[in-house]
């Protein structure tokens, strides 16, 4: 069977592209690095891929707002390609900076290109923070977390602007439609409102959301940084035989779904 093709989108300042590339390959996909210039020049076509991955980093330095300049570029030049990609039922994942980009294009939470309905704003702590957090996987439509619902997973966050914020009405809709995919959790496994379990002060402890179809997903934590046993800070404290690295499941789910396309 042919492997699903993943477009790993790069541009100035994207810097989690190689590990995201590797995570998808390890999950059984065929990754390809694609610079946004190659999509603008039509040298490469989104249509040739099954999955679009927006990796982490500081696209264009996160100037003005994190992910903003790239979001403007995508909505200005790739609107059609993106709309067709979405309506073709294909998958999109935005990790960290990629999540910020998806929200600022309007693709999340509600697939409205050009209409911004939520924001990822400066951490309450006021600075960039890199630490491991526990995530509660919510019951949602998200295809990236199938079979993981209800579990707690360890993933690293590394960002300065990760506070999920939006109007009460929007939050309510997101919650009602089961679009919350991940929440920051405390040791008790419950959603955490307090630092450091909730590292940025996100409303409702939201760490990741998806659109109403569950095929577009964005998250601040970095699943691609937990696809090897030795990625976990405390792998030396863990029993020899243990579950696969928590982040890998996200990529495997994507590949499995794409295989059905």
């Amino acid at each position, binding site marked *: 069977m042919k492997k699903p093709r993943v477009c790993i989108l790069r541009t100035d300042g994207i*810097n989690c592209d190689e590990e995201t590339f590797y995570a998808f390959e390890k999950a059984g996909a065929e990754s390809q690095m694609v*610079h946004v210039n190659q999509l603008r020049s039509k040298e490469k076509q989104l249509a040739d891929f099954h999955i679009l991955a927006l990796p982490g980093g500081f696209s264009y330095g996160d100037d003005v707002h994190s992910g903003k300049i790239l979001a403007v570029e995508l909505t200005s030049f790739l609107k059609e390609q993106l709309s067709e990609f979405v309506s073709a039922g294909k998958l999109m994942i935005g990790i960290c900076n990629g999540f910020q980009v998806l929200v600022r294009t309007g693709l999340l939470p509600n697939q409205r290109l050009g209409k*911004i309905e939520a924001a990822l704003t400066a951490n309450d702590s*006021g600075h960039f923070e890199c630490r491991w957090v526990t995530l509660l996987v919510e019951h949602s439509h998200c295809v990236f977390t199938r079979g993981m619902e209800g579990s707690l997973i360890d993933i690293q966050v590394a960002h300065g602007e990760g506070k999920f914020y939006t109007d009460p009405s929007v939050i309510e809709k997101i919650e009602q439609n089961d679009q919350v995919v991940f929440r920051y959790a405390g040791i008790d496994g419950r959603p955490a409102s307090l630092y450091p379990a909730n590292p940025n*002060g996100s409303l409702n402890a939201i760490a990741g959301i998806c659109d109403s179809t569950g095929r577009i997903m964005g998250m601040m934590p970095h699943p691609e940084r937990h696809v090897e046993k030795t990625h976990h800070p405390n792998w030396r404290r863990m029993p020899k035989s243990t579950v696969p690295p928590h982040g890998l499941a996200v990529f495997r789910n994507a590949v499995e779904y794409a295989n059905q396309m």
Partner: protein
Amino acid sequence: MLQEVRVITKKNLPDSKGEEVLYDIIHALSINSVQKVRTARVFRFEGIGAGEAALLAEKLLAEDVFQEYKVNGPVITDANVVLEVAYKPGVMNPEAASLMKAAADLGITGLMAADSSWEYGFYGNTITSADVERITSSLLVNATVEYIVQERPKTLVIHGTPGRMEMIPVRQMSDDELLELSRDKLFLNLEEMQVIKDYFLRIGRDPTDIEIETIAQTWSEHCGHKTFKARLIVDGQEKKPLLKRLQNATEDSKHPLVLSAFVDNSGAMEFYDGQAICGKVETHNSPSAIEPYGGAMTGSGGVFRDIVGTGRGAKVLASTDMFCFARPDTPEEDIPAGCLRPHYLLRRVVAGVRDYGNRMGIPTNNGSVHFHRDFRAKPSVIVGAYGILPAELCRKGRPRPGDLVVSLGGRTGRDGIHGATFSSGEMTDRTIDVNSSAVQIGHPIEEKRTFDAILAARDEGLIRAITDCGAGGFASAIGEMGEEVGARIALDRAPLKYPGLAPWEILESESQERMVLAAAPENVDRLMEICQGYNVEATVLGEFTGDRCFSATYEGQEVMNLEMAFLHNGLPQRVMQAAWRPTVYEEPPAVATADWVQLYCRVMGHINTCSKEPIVRQYDHGVQGTSALPPFTGTGCDGPNDAAIMTPILGKPYGMVISHGLNPVLNMIDPYQGSLWAAAEAVSNAVASGASPRDLVLMDNFIWPFPDEELLGALDLAVDACVDFVRATGMPFISGKDSLSSTYRGKDGTVIKIPPILCISAFGRIPDVSRTVSADFKKAGSQIVLVGHRNTSEMAGSIYYDILEYLGNNLPRLSPTALMQVFEAVYEAISSGKILACHDLSEGGLAAGLAEMCFGGSVGAQVEIPDKELAENFLFNETAGCFLAELPAEENPSDVFGAVPCQVIGKTTTGSSISAVQAGGLLFEVELNKLKEAWQQPMREVFRQ
């Protein structure tokens, strides 16, 4: 007229930047008149109308989910004081280019220039103008690069007409005139100035200003390493030059893994799978002293370029940072004129390292901070970088005649003019005014995309040779690259940030984020194509000639033509006198400890022992997905580890280990033993994590006050220590750097010499990371084993003595030969899988190491102190090369560690305290939480966590 857009976070939402500023106002400045701070962004645009500015506000600048904006109007209207802080004109604001790009993407035409800045609103009815003055000068404005905007600027476009080239009539100059020419500008001594004069007398013409500048920076201490190459007379006896000694020791070690030592921008060793790993450590003290944020950024950016400029181009894997400052709470009156407050320096340097490394996507996963009063005049900022590249590309490329000189990356501006010569000069109270041009704001994204393009070009075989533009700019980069063949460039081809640079400024400018390549003519088109694909500007400046001259033209006129031979070999070898005279520091009288719990807490809370986690958390240490041993692990991820271990080849078990060691205080007492300690500490950190001493290489960084006879004697001893360490252990130095200018001279005659520092970094390879350990205790009931040689009466320079307010003379004396046996034994024990956890002993001694292992494992410990030992010495002695190991109860220590000294000092417990007994009696029992609180508090306060 300029259009202004102001954007502010909605009133009901937190303003975390404002809260940060308020925290500093209260805690760093102890000003209590300010109740609240609000911040706003200010954006300015030239060449568009108000309508287009509004469109930009809507689509780009403001998001109404959480923000509000005004076009050409104020957004902070109710504050008692409002002020705006912006970059000075000419200081490039990295955000400006993004504003231009996004505006173009949004279809807005005619935008000529854009800028952005911050506005602060201060609330409080009792705020005095004196308060505002202190807040701005100590917190918000660094006058070197920023200013307070009083009125709306007329234009953002920087105009200027190039200064003309000048002839410098050195042939007629008297000695006094030569010295005046050198002062504050060339930093050369009279003999060197005379050699220059003689050269131009000989060739029968006067030099151009460009030629003088090029010679000065090539001959600067920073680039020429005159002291390390000097003939040395030590106590009347001539000794080999310092650099020669280090290089000979490395050659003699014949280490099988060394691929490139002392010849390239970084040193390289063999890794696995046909790959090589390389490392480089740099100091960046002088710029960081006057503009810590920009200084630290350019320090990081520079050392990263050293890595990518290694061989035919390497990928940067990791970044490290070692800092020395005065205590953050140093009183204002204690700070010399022209120097910045340590609290501000520490926070801004950390921010600079953070913002450069994180944006580049390079994990910063190893480092340390050291505090000593004498750093108040000049901090030490040491930044390291490590990389990987195919082994067959790891040797320095050589340009051939006919190859083209290609510059890549950032544009050239008036940044860092005289950086090389400046960092070679001493810091004085004139430094800030005279050399303010020597710093700039780094642009990590420019550097990142440039590296992306370089690695793509490398993989297509388009790079014949590569080097970075650092100190000395194009002059140094092209001058060195073309040393054997010669190079001719057209200065007017160099893309400029703004008009108005004189030819010599273009050649000497130290604008960041620039690389120089040598490429065969047939490859240049493809090279340009790749660069365009990554939004990287690339320009052919000229060619490598074959005439062995370094020449340059400007608008068709020749402005420089120097023989490479004179430029690189004309510098007279210095003859320098060295003689070290030990100072006797009193030993403290024996004091019986009254309150052990309080003493233990004071040691853990000592600023040189305390947890640096609040700093580490601001650095991304997980990016690239390579982490196999992060800085902190354990049940709460707050137990510190000794080294960083990464798996650079994703999916492979091969590990790269990185560690370092330094101890400024010990070097003051005894440069030889202090330097051995640094080497032992660097290696111990790597070995404690599971590295084999046979798979490690070393790098040296000497940061010394201006070397008078006394300090040169100390330097001589430090180098001897390094050489003896190499000869005893076989671990070679493969890269190094010296910075011999950390002396401060105030106009009132005060002279402050910062403590001499030898920072030794170690890196190496590990065949399988699954055979490594972390420092956190894994379970209760294990044996705690002390491994290594130590004489506990050697307490000089310890934290314990510092608490007693003594320095002492009797410092740990190390035997490299004995150390090597310990390293071997510890490595064998760890790789055989018998050790559950291991930690090396350093600041705070056994007591601190034990506590840190308990914090990580959330287990308690019971320790038994031998009757013959003085408890204080047993617990707080800081002999390097000693280890605490966690060994399962069933294992027999002497089976595991063989012949090397090892003693079971206690066991881990299910409890939540550390207790010590001696002679059958309980000496103390202290709760872990109490120790941890004391240990975490100091940096939490400084970094608001």
